[in-house]
C-alpha cells in the first residue's frame, strides 16, 4: 500500500449530505443507521442507510478522516446518537457533534475502530 498516493474520489460528494438526506426523509425514508468504514487507502466511506417503503436505500460518499462533514441531526433528531457514535469510534469530525458518548476520556483508546489506531492487545491476544 502506497501511503503517499492521493486516492482519487469525488471530493465534493460529502457537501450534499444534508440535501440528499432531506430528500430521502421527505420521500418517506427513515434513517436506520450511519455506518462509517475505513478503506485501505485511508479514505473513509460513510453509508447512511434508510428504510423506504420496506426497502433498504442508502446514501454513500467517501471522505478523508480529517474533513469536517455536516450534521443531519437537525433534520432528523434520532441521527444525533448515530453521529456521536461515529465521532467517538472513528474520531471523525461532524459539525457540532461532541465526542464522548461511549468512550471515557483518558481511559479508553482514541478512535478504537480506526485500522491504524487499532488497540494493540496487551499481554495475551483475544480469543
Amino acid at each position: 500500500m502506497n501511503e503517499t498516493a492521493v486516492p482519487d474520489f469525488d471530493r465534493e460528494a460529502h457537501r450534499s449530505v444534508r440535501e440528499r438526506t432531506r430528500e430521502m426523509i421527505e420521500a418517506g425514508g427513515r434513517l436506520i443507521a450511519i455506518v462509517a468504514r475505513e478503506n485501505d487507502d485511508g479514505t473513509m466511506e460513510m453509508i447512511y442507510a434508510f428504510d423506504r417503503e420496506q426497502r433498504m436505500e442508502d446514501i454513500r460518499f467517501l471522505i478523508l478522516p480529517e474533513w469536517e462533514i455536516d450534521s443531519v441531526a437537525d433534520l432528523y433528531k434520532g441521527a444525533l446518537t448515530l453521529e456521536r457514535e461515529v465521532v467517538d469510534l472513528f474520531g471523525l469530525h461532524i459539525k457540532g457533534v461532541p465526542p464522548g458518548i461511549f468512550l471515557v476520556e483518558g481511559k479508553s483508546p482514541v478512535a478504537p475502530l480506526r485500522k491504524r489506531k487499532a488497540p494493540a492487545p496487551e499481554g495475551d491476544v483475544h480469543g
Partner: protein
Amino acid sequence: MALEDKMRARSPWIMHFDTGSCNGCDLEVWALLTPRYDVERFGAINRANPKQADILLITGPVTKRCEDRLRNLYEQTPEPKLVIACGNCASTGAPFHNCYNVDGGVDKVIPVDLYVPGCACRPEALIDALVLGLSKWREKAAGTDKEDKG
C-alpha cells in the same frame, strides 16, 4: 458472634450492579429474586441501596466507565460485606477479554469473595453461591467482631 450478626446472617440483603454485562446474568439474578427460585424465602431482599446491602452481586466485565462507580459502591457498603462475581465475565472478563473498553473481571477493581461460573450463570448456581457466601460471611463477621473488641 454478636447478636446483630446472627440476625443479619438470616436476612442478607442483596444489591445487584451491572458493570457492563450482556444482561444474561442480570436476567438470572432477577430470576433468583422472583417466584420460581425466590431467595426471599432465605430472607434475602434486593435493595438498590449500597448502604443497606450485605451482599453485592456484580455481573459483567468491568467497563472503563463503570470502574469508578463500582469502587464507589463497594466503599459505601458497610462491613462485613460479601462480593459475588456472577458469571464468566464478572469472574475473568471472558469472552470480552481484551476488548478495548473492558478492564477485565470484577477482581481487577474490588476484592471478590466468590466466583460463580456459567454464561449465563444459572440461578441454581447463584443460590449455591449465596449459601456458601453466608457461611463465609459468618466467618467474616466473626473476624470483624474480634477486631472491634481490639
